[in-house]
């Protein structure tokens, strides 16, 4: 089983490494939603390094916890973390979205070890995760299921169908983390279809909810502890994040939802991320 880290400095350093890896892959290969990858990086690092029971050498381990990245367009963050955890070697990622490559611009189940579900069309992951959580409840197994969603994804009606289902069936083995970076593809979420007050809405749907700074590993680790939540309720973490976190010219700028880096932008971004890394 993968050894968990709770040391916050270590988690912080891993996040920085992952952001640098994402930057290099986006710059050298086609594709990549870099802004959303950077908002969700700290969430995924906290989950894979500090929370999940998993085994990179045995990706189908029956007692593992499940993670579904429902905001599948940010798969590059997932791939980079799976790579660093040791699920696969660097040949997978270096051909990301390349002709004949092994990993594309959205996760496809079993394209590489550790990818639990096919996502990319928003509004699917929570239903699938609820089905997995429900199945494990019925089998009286203690595996936990984590689904990472985007705030834009909460525009989808199917997300709310699944929210109702999970609370109806008391799926307290299910946790969602909403990467609330407040930006969709074209504009602020509040200017498109506002979710706010998102925490209150989730509570009204029967979930046990915590709201945290989603770029702070310690806050995520604390909030995700099931002992702090009501038994019999699924857990929701509203993680307020910054899109493009870590690179000044990308932060909270919707232009970086999906944009290729020019060489000078790459250099500046790398310098900033490295300098953060040395700090």
């Amino acid at each position, binding site marked *: 089983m993968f050894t968990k880290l709770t040391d916050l400095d270590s988690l912080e350093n891993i996040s920085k490494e992952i952001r640098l890896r994402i930057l290099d892959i986006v710059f050298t290969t086609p594709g990549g939603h870099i802004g959303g990858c950077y908002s969700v990086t700290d969430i995924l690092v906290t989950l894979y390094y500090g929370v999940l029971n998993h085994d990179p050498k045995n990706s189908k381990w029956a007692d593992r916890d499940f993670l579904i990245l429902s905001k599948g367009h940010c798969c590059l963050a997932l791939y980079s973390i799976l790579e660093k955890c040791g699920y696969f070697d660097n040949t997978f990622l270096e051909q990301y979205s390349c002709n004949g490559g092994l990993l594309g611009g959205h996760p496809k189940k079993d394209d590489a070890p550790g990818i639990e579900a096919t996502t990319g069309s928003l509004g699917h992951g929570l*239903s*699938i995760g*609820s*089905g*997995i959580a429900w199945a*494990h409840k019925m089998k009286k197994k203690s595996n936990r299921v984590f689904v990472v969603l985007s705030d834009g994804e909460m525009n989808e009606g199917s997300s709310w169908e699944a929210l109702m289902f999970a609370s109806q069936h008391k799926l307290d083995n299910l946790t969602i983390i909403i990467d609330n970076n407040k930006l969709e593809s074209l504009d602020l979420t509040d200017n498109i279809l506002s979710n706010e007050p998102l925490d209150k809405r989730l509570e009204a749907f029967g979930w046990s909810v915590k709201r945290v700074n989603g770029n702070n590993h310690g806050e995520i680790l604390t909030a995700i502890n099931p002992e702090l939540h009501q038994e019999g309720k699924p857990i929701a973490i509203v993680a307020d994040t910054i899109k493009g976190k870590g690179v000044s010219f990308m932060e909270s700028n919707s232009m970086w939802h999906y944009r290729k880096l020019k060489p000078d932008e790459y250099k500046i971004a790398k310098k900033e991320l490295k300098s953060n890394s040395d700090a």
Partner: protein
Amino acid sequence: MRNAFNTALIESARNDESIVLLVGDIGFGVFDSFRDEFPDRFFNVGVAEANMVGIAAGLSMSGFKPVVYTIIPFLIMRAFEQIRVDLCIQNLPVILVGVGGGLVYDTLGPTHHAIEDLSIMRSLPNMHVLTPCDPSEVKLSFNDSFSHRGPTYIRLGRGGEKNLLTEDLIKNRLPEKINVIKNGKEVLFISCGPILEETMAALDLLSSDFNCGLINIHSLKPLDKNSIKDQISLYNFIVTIEEHSIIGGIGSAIAEIIAQSSSNSRQLIIGIPDVITTEIGKREYLLGHHNIDAKSIANRVKSFILS
């Protein structure tokens, strides 16, 4: 057909504990006996079909064999993208059972008619599409679906259908193969689903004029193309009949085969024309309105051959 499905489901569930039934708040009274026998394996997940298919995917990924049941437009059209992504791309053995194929929800109107489903489902890679013609074939189709390691769509009528297949026809029926009901020489009828009743009646009406053959298609996908090619080569005239739009169903599937073969046969595609089915009435009336009742079929075939 609904009751036949419930019976087949119960029999399968007795032998396989992983089978669970999900319904979208549809089927009043139909599944009482299943629910009584397997209370922990019957789930009404509500009027939320997209979620229902996603839940089924998650259950399947965790070792269950989910059977998902509701009225066809809500199952196939509302949840189409979940079927495409969660079931077909992930290639999961989830069985979708749609009730109300064609015009059987007659007076409920075009929202409840299912005349595009075969076209839609046939286009999905990994999906198997089964079209039992009568209650006796429902059980066979349901059993067939368990041998497929991916998703299956089974299209049912509603209730009260007559059994059409003889014991010999049932005995000789094979999964994924055509079922030759009658051999002939001049006109080959190819029928799909419960409309077989009208097709058989049309054959009777034409029996003194033409030597007709008849095959029943219970597996639209995979389609037994080689046997169909062989059959087509024996006839000058082919007539396909379906309670479905003339676009994309069995008529189209057979036309695709003819177009890619050396056959000189001419095909008449009989089905529901490319219209919104707004006419109000019972199924028998609507079949007549759309010229797919036995009498209309016979008349159209005569005109086609003599034209």
